[in-house]
């Protein structure tokens, strides 16, 4: 981001320009999160009991495990669908590529609640998706109120976060390398495996981590399409806060989720600037709100 040509000494007013933004950030993010942290360690005293109970209450770990498993499935689905799609985007002509890109961005453009409403209608008991499965004899699959429905809806919402980094990574691969490999004696499959796949790995890793991370914090979709018996970590967090008013426990859980998320993001960032990748996606499209 920073331009190398502008090495001249920064005049002090440049820092002053940051103050309003940092002030807003502090009021909404830093101070509340800091308070959560303090509450969670029992300020003004110090205790780790709230953290310890996360691991001993028997609920948190189960829910966390379920969340991680859901996130892993969602990530896998998004990858299996997203990789061929992103690959196709790099292969078609510019006009069709534009169409495919707009289609990727549609989940961003569709409002969160409109999309969740649509999935409820599609996946509800007796809804069209279930009817299709019933027609093929699979009549006992419950979509709404189950992890299956949550997975279907979440994968759709998160696919753009897989496709966009993949597209930018795959688009940068010189396809003539594949021709070169074939000229050097590789069959098309071997050329793909030895040349294309290793070169796309950066995009794959950042897409995987991005989707996994985002699915850990999903709240609205599991709340509407899942069931209370199979809640995910975000619902647990909300429940502890608003129903149990257990601010210390909620704080500890929130900090745990935050730490996991930021660690993953920092890791992903090493594979090609995830934060800037989301930012870049944001200028052409729009942020997903969980």
């Amino acid at each position, binding site marked *: 981001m920073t331009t190398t040509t502008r090495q001249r000494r920064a005049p002090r007013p440049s820092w002053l320009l940051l103050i309003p933004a940092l002030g807003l950030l502090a009021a909404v993010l830093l101070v509340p999160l800091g308070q959560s942290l303090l509450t969670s360690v029992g300020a003004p005293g110090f205790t780790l009991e709230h953290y310890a109970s996360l691991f001993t209450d028997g609920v948190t770990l189960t829910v966390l495990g379920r969340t991680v498993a859901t996130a892993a499935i969602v990530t896998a689905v998004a990858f299996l669908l997203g990789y061929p799609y992103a690959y196709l985007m790099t292969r078609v002509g510019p006009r069709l590529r534009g169409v495919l890109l707009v289609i990727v961005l549609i989940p961003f453009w569709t409002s969160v609640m409109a999309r969740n409403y649509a999935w409820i209608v599609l996946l509800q008991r007796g809804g069209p998706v279930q009817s299709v499965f019933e027609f093929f004899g699979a009549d006992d699959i419950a979509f709404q109120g189950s992890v299956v429905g949550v997975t279907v809806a979440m994968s759709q919402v998160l696919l753009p976060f897989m496709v966009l980094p993949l597209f930018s990574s795959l688009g940068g691969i*010189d396809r*003539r*390398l594949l*021709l*070169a*490999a*074939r*000229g*050097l*004696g*590789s*069959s*098309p499959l*071997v*050329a793909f495996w*030895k*040349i294309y796949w*290793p*070169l796309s790995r950066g995009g794959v890793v950042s897409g995987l981590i991005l989707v996994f991370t985002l699915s850990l914090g999903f709240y609205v979709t599991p709340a509407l399409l899942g069931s209370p018996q199979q809640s995910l970590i975000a619902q647990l967090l909300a429940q502890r806060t608003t129903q149990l008013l257990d601010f210390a426990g909620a704080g500890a859980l929130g900090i745990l989720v935050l730490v996991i998320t930021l660690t993953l993001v920092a890791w992903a960032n090493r594979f090609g600037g995830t934060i800037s990748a989301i930012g870049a996606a944001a200028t052409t499209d729009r942020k997903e709100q969980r």
Partner: protein
Amino acid sequence: MTISSTSRAGTPTSSASAASAASAAKQGTQIRLEGVTKDYGLAAPAVDDISLTIEPGEFMTLLGPSGSGKTTTLNLIAGFETLTSGTIALNGSDVGSLPPHKRNLGMLFQNYALFPHMTVAQNVAYPLKERKVPKAEIARRVSEVLDLVQLPDRDGNYPSQLSGGQQQRVALARAIVFNPAALLLDEPLGALDRNLRAALQTEIRRIHREVGSTFVFVTHDQEEAMNLSDRIALFNSGHIEQVGSPEQLYREPDTLFTARFLGDSNVFDLDGAASATSAGWDGRTWSIVPGTVSSHPGAANRAAVVVRPEDVRVAHDPADVPSGSNSVGAVVRDLEYMGSYRTALLDLGRVRQLGRARVDALDSTFTVGDQVTAWWKPERQRIVAA
């Protein structure tokens, strides 16, 4: 010539390496194109019924402007494109339906096409690994071929750490390390600056000599083509205009296209068809000597006289023109200093036609505006199809 290099490379245990191949002179592969056509369904076929035989060990250049079909032809030989019709045979065996990885041809690309995630050594070893060559032999051949391209110490580097010229040397090493039946070069020097190009031209000529296999080189640069080639096939909108040695194409062009594409030339569109001994241009009659008339069938209908600027002399006094020469009166429009000589731009009294003649750099008797006579020996001219 009994052992084709196809079978040689097919047996990886063969000790023939790029360097030792030099001793076995001219064991390259014959490449034979017959009626080769590639039609994309556009207005005209990209390659239209081309027949060409590239001899074993020959350095053949496919020369032509962009869009003339030369690269498509190379891709057809390599197998990256499928034939619409025609046959392509390597040493007599038809390869038209083989996929690229089974043709055993080396290919050098303009953008080098080095695998960015592999080191120099891994890049060069790639075709050998694909052919399941034993590890020890891979190591030996990689280091031999890196010596051959004069990059012995860079095997651990990644392509991005090398200069453009070095990358192209690595690509060259990778393309010849597996003793391919022939080496196809697709404008390999196009991305390099002038000095590097010259150095790599010398290099490619040397490696061609040492390896002795067939090279097919695609370029749009006529100087490069003349420098490197045993023969040149000049392409023009999907067909081959003329095939021959660089000298033949330069001195004995068959068509106006060839004459104009290679070097500078003065072109005079004749008033009518030329007879065996004379031709008319703008009311003048010029003599023709045997052996200077193109055998191209088009020359019988519409012909032009082509004279290279270095064969045209200028004289102040028409009396100085040797008898038997062809001549035309002109006014010196401009003089361009070229270092060892000067080029006189001549106004021939015709709209949109300027002549070019070579003047000695030290001859200061000519100035702009002089009335002169331009003349040349009839044996230095060429009658081509217009």
